[in-house]
């Protein structure tokens, strides 16, 4: 029964005027950082680290983590309004969020995103509270084959029911895999596909590609269609927010499922980006209106947002308990931990209860603050869409390029944005899906590494992916998600034909 008492003790540390102020400041800064594409949570948090030298570790982590939550909230804003994901993990939110905003329901889309983010976060924190000890044991069970199985599952869940033509999906997926393999390979140490360009040594940044594909690509399409911003909404009303809130309980199943996926991917380092994609894919497969996904379905916003945020919060657990960060932001925070003189690892929970439980308690409070702050600003964000395109268009271009530059402070990335802007434009004109490309870029290299490591371990036998119940279980679910939708669809259409035939 220790956990509950410890949590209460944590609240007594977290709820002090100074800490509350730090939370509000952190969340607000995070919102700004999240809204600007490129200047994502990892950059924002690392910029803040020097400021934390003067704080004690508990206050410092509260400030940094609040900023992370703020960035997660903010990241969805530009995804929905401009089709530019502020954070990698909000890419999946663009699929239905942007169409919904374009249909004139931007307030609804934003409210859905923020509230389900908040719910996802809450689910994540509760799991952390309950399972602080046990979850780290579970994560220890994951070796290379298990990791590969998880990534395979993410691919399978997403691709199982692709709506585009299979050939086009394949082209998009392969392009993503090729892009993901640029740079130095971890397992062999070989430098691949850089063609002597030293700028490519670090690989092609996923975020830069996304900014180009979505931000610039979308802008080009808009310009072609007559300089009209397509998301114009005439009426923004607090009543819209309330109406959407009342609508939310309807999606309880999606929320629950996505929350669980997020928790799982957060604890077993898959990361929020993988979680949001996987959750979107699963929601589409589970929904009876799966085919309508991509046109502004509410579930298509609820699913990735819930998973993103629950994974984001749960990612703190392996970082603290194992020293393995499952998101880029968690990695930066871990660096902070080391500088403040704390050693992440199983003993942190025993030796630094004030720090750990202060942080966990602060997560409840700051996420609640986050939802309130962000909901209060919904009308303001949505009003952005009423600015004429001639003003907002150039601003988006500036934001895109500034954002891409902040990723790695490299001029070369600006050319990449331009190039991928054209690719994005061509892809959308020719109806090539972008999502498989993004998924392959995010997970391609990780999947390849863990596959390679597994093959080294097993001397090249594929049997290693069915060697124990855990990995077999994940592989089976993945295969089912990959094959079932097609075969079921086929069987259904056969039966329907039979019914019609007589």
């Amino acid at each position, binding site marked *: 029964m220790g956990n509950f008492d410890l949590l209460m003790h944590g609240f007594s540390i977290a709820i002090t005027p100074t800490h509350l102020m730090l939370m509000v400041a952190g969340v607000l800064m995070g919102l700004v950082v999240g809204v600007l594409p490129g200047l994502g949570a*990892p950059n924002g948090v*690392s910029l803040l*680290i*020097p400021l934390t*030298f003067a704080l004690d570790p508990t206050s410092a982590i509260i400030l940094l983590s609040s900023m992370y939550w703020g960035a997660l909230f903010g990241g969805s804003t530009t995804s929905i309004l401009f089709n530019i994901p502020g954070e990698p993990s909000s890419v999946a939110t663009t699929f239905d969020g942007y169409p919904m905003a374009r249909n004139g329901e931007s307030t609804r889309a934003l409210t859905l995103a923020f509230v389900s983010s908040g719910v996802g976060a809450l689910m994540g924190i509760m799991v952390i509270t309950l399972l602080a000890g046990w979850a780290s044991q579970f*994560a*220890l*069970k*994951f*070796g*290379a084959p298990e990791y590969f199985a998880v990534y395979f599952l993410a691919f399978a869940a997403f691709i199982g029911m692709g709506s585009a033509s299979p050939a086009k999906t394949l082209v998009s997926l392969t392009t993503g895999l090729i892009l993901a393999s640029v*740079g*130095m*390979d*971890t*397992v*062999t*140490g070989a*430098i691949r596909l850089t063609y*002597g360009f*030293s700028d490519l*040594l*670090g*690989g092609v940044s996923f975020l830069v590609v996304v900014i180009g594909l979505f931000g610039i690509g979308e802008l080009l399409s808009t310009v072609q269609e007559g300089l009209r911003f397509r998301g114009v909404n005439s009426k923004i009303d607090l009543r819209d927010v309330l109406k959407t809130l009342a609508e939310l309980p309807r999606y309880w199943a999606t929320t629950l499922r996505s929350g669980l996926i997020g928790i799982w991917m957060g604890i077993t380092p898959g990361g929020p980006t993988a979680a949001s994609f996987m959750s979107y894919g699963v929601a589409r497969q589970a929904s009876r209106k799966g085919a309508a996904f991509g046109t502004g379905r509410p579930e298509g916003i609820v699913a990735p947002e819930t998973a993103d945020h629950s994974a984001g919060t749960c990612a703190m657990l392996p970082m603290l308990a*194992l*020293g*393995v*960060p499952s998101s*880029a932001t968690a*990695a*930066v*925070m*871990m*660096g902070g931990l*080391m*500088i403040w*003189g704390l*050693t*992440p*690892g*199983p*003993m*942190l929970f025993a*030796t630094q209860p004030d720090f750990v439980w202060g942080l966990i308690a602060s997560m409840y409070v700051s996420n609640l603050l986050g939802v309130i702050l962000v909901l209060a600003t919904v009308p303001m964000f949505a009003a952005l869409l009423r600015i004429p395109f001639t003003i907002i268009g150039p601003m988006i271009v500036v934001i895109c390029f500034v954002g891409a530059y902040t990723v*790695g*402070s490299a001029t070369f990335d600006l050319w990449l944005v331009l190039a991928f802007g054209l690719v994005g434009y061509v892809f959308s004109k020719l109806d090539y899906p972008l999502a498989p490309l993004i998924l392959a870029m995010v997970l391609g290299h990780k999947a390849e*590494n863990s596959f390679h*490591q597994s093959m*080294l*371990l097993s001397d090249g036998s594929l049997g290693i992916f069915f060697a124990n119940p855990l990995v077999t279980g994940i592989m089976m679910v993945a295969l089912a998600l990959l094959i079932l939708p097609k075969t079921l669809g086929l069987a259904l259409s056969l039966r329907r034909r039979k019914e019609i035939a007589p």
Partner: protein
Amino acid sequence: MTLKSALIAATAIGTAGPALAEWAPTRPIEFVVASGAGGGTDNFARTIQSAMTRNEIVDRNMVVLNKGGGSGAEAFLYARQNAADPHKLIFGTNNVYLLPHVAQLAYSAEDLQPVAALALDEFLIWVKADAPWQTPMELIEAAMAEPGSIVFGGSQSKDTDETLVALIEQTTGADFKYIPFNGGGEVGVQLAGGHVAANVNNPNENIGQWQAGAIRPLCVFSPERMAESEPVSGDMGWHDIPTCVEQGLDIERYQMPRTVWLPAGTEPEVVAYYEDILTQVAATAEWQDYLSKTSQTAAALTGDELTAFIAENEAATVTVFEAEGWTTAAAQ
């Protein structure tokens, strides 16, 4: 504080000679880090940043820039592109001069000017707590009995970890299997979970798992035992770990220096300035705290001492590379 810094400045002038201490930064200093945020080199650079800020050693701003692509090659290429820029400090390990031997890269070690080595990170052999081997020789004999059956995990390929495993193989004739992972923390967890049999992590990468009793060290690759410390796991502290030579494994020294560089072509005054402020950092409480928290061995090598250390370390490691056939055509 002003009196103190004035005194320090005065001593610096006294030792280095008036001509050499004249340069001072006129713009913010860029700290170019050859690892991603949160990595070992990143912590090294940020600790120095923090020590310099808190003790008012430098009154200019310092901006940390992570360029960890290609095992850090990105940062060293950046140094080449910014030759003679006195406002860029590059933070790395021995990868600065070792990388060009194993990969074809568009820079060579001559593109960077060594400034200082401030710490030596130790390497240990670690096994899972319930593993059957009590000494390094037992582990090696098990590998001799069944070649390739014992799996070492390590970070990256042809980097310090794999080099050490290769060195053990070359010294003893045993044959291990080596699996590269992304970083030391990940390798520590893979060992604690029993997915690999052993690793050669630095103390800091495994301390959490050791504290929890999930893994234990067999020996340290250092000529003498590590510094006295509080007990870490049970009643065992860092000083209680035997050296590998004590245990009959004949590798006297394998340590990784934490190094600071400038782009080549800066004035000698600039090098002298940075040598001076980094020597001041080594004396701060923040720095001592960092060394003891991460269980690294103190070192403050500059000038000829540093050049000699680099030459020796490079020669010894390249011998291992050549025996493994890793050296690239370009470097031979």
